[in-house]
């Protein structure tokens, strides 16, 4: 695997203000993403897992600058994305695209599929109508649909088909990076595997790089080269997929992996059941964000925030156990 970085993220943060009180004053912050750093290499798939609300989507959206980061830097092929003007950014959008979780909400219900897929070409200046049509048909074929589908409206498709359309739209501008935000979570198992396969095929065909966000650890393992685990707005562990799954370092990763029910009757899981719920990002615990639920909690975890550091080659974690 080439180890050329495509995208570098440094200390990315996103705090959402909580408004309230009189005249909508800011009364607090949701620390949705609180200092995340990672690199995505060309052609690889980086998986991002974590429980609901831990900041995965927010991270993904910040990469495309669909959300303005509160802090931190993003470099795409070396260019500092945060320095780009709006119009430069619009051009930059061709380089990276997004596939969304909800196949029902991400397609405009009033447009035909043809129109939805044509739009990227219009936006990016393809004037020739016929050429656009051709490209739309080509896209549809690429994702396993037929050209006659172009005339239909999204509500006439099943979830899996819609997700294909979403993927086709992302492909339209020939991006280098695709951020896929839970692209299969809403799909049934039998359909989910179709979409996963499609994503893999496309990656090979177009040399795409994926940031693959999901909460299903099985799916992530299946598709990712490397995997990052997030908890409460922070990355707690990041490593090559096999290493992470076989020998997790962070107690949270360990618990997470053990919690997943395996569809195999013979496999005996040594389940670590965590107590309590995920704390609210509006009011995160001090020190290590996981210390409230951690079975291996130590005194210093409650006060000191652990650094996110490389403890083995290519294996990063943020835990005081490895200090």
């Amino acid at each position, binding site marked *: 695997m080439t180890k050329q970085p495509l995208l570098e993220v440094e200390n990315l943060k996103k705090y959402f203000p909580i408004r309230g*009180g*009189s*005249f909508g004053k800011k009364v607090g912050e949701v620390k949705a993403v609180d200092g995340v750093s990672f690199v995505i290499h060309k052609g690889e798939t980086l998986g991002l897992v974590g429980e609901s609300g831990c900041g995965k989507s927010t991270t993904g959206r910040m990469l495309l600058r669909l959300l303005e980061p509160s802090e931190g830097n993003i470099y795409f092929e070396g260019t500092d994305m945060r320095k780009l003007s709006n119009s430069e950014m619009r051009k930059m959008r061709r380089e990276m695209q997004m596939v969304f979780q909800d196949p029902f909400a991400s397609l405009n219900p009033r447009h035909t599929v043809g129109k939805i897929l044509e739009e990227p070409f219009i936006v990016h200046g393809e004037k020739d109508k016929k050429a656009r049509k051709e490209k739309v048909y080509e896209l549809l074929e690429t994702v396993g649909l037929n050209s006659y589908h172009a005339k239909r409206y999204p509500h006439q498709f099943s979830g899996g088909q819609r997700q294909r359309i979403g993927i086709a739209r992302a492909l339209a501008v020939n991006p280098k990076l695709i951020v896929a935000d839970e692209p299969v979570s809403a799909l049934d198992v039998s359909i989910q595997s179709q979409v996963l396969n499609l994503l893999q095929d496309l990656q090979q065909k177009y040399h795409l790089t994926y940031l693959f966000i999901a909460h299903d650890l099985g799916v992530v393992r299946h598709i990712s080269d490397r995997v990052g685990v997030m908890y409460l707005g922070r990355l707690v562990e990041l490593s090559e997929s096999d290493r992470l799954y076989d020998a997790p370092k962070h107690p949270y990763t360990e618990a997470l992996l053990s919690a997943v029910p395996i569809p195999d009757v013979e496999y005996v899981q040594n389940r670590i059941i965590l107590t309590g719920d995920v704390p609210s990002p509006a009011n995160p615990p001090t020190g290590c964000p996981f210390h409230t639920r951690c079975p291996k909690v130590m005194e210093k975890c409650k006060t000191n925030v652990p650094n996110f550091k490389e403890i083995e080659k290519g294996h990063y974690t943020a835990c005081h156990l490895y200090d």
Partner: protein
Amino acid sequence: MLRYIIKRLAMLIPVLLGMVLIVFSLIHFIPGNPAQVMLGQQASKEAIAALTKELGLDRPLPIQFFEYVKGLLMGDLGNSFRTQNPITEEIWPYLAATIELAFFAMIIAIFIGVNAGIISAWFQHSWFDYVAMLIALIGVSMPIFWLGLMEQYVFSIQLDLLPTTGRDNIRDPVAAITHLYLIDTLIQGRFDQFSEVFQHLVLPGFALATIPMAIIARMTRSSMLEVMRSDYIRTARAKGMSMFWVVYKHSLKNAFIPVLTIIGLQTGLLLGGAILTETIFGWPGIGNYIYNAIDYRDYPVVQSGILVVATIFVFINLIVDLLYAAIDPRIKYQ
């Protein structure tokens, strides 16, 4: 809670100020000199000029506006041009008349509307449902000024059952204390008058109640239906609860939230929007008061009258908002 109320009140200020400004400019841009109107068609030019001056209408508009607002801030609604009386003193009997009527109408509307809505939802697709909803639809489509006329024609002229106009028996007028005649007559133990007053309320009350009643019935029905389809109703039923209890315990409280909004809105609207009903039924209410004041170009009355009505409207909606918290624990006002 208190802070929330204060905050809401604070937010009221710009709205009310804006309203004052709009009413002020609107009324002052209406052609026609109040002095002329007051003195009548046959008055001399000089007399009109003198009165104009006395009323202070010869001053520049911004100054008049400023003076008016200054007065408002000190709780002074100004004096009526026509009667020279302070509006603060004068307005209550009119307001009381409207409040009594609107309240009466709203009680009818809520009582019939909510019950019809519940029964319709309960027996969805039954003949009751269809008939009730058809009536409700006709109700919302009803020009009430026509309904009022028809009511008078049928119940008063043809059947001679109920009085057409006014609030009380003219020959035996109610001695006003609170100006809410139903209460006044009770305080004085005049049950004969009470019944008179009540009879006078019936026709205008029903005319005024028609639209809110229809809206409330429709709203209650649809929100009941929605609630009845919800997951927690299914949970309640899974516990072995009978449908009746499910509806009365679980649905009603939830369904009442949107209905409450409508009730608040409609009550507010009734206060100001009763002009047509008041005109037809000769009801000496606030709508008539303001409407006549427009005729007479009684600027202070129009300005302050509208302001008072709007303030009440806004307050009713504030109260409704606060009631939400009582019904729906998810809403907390800090």
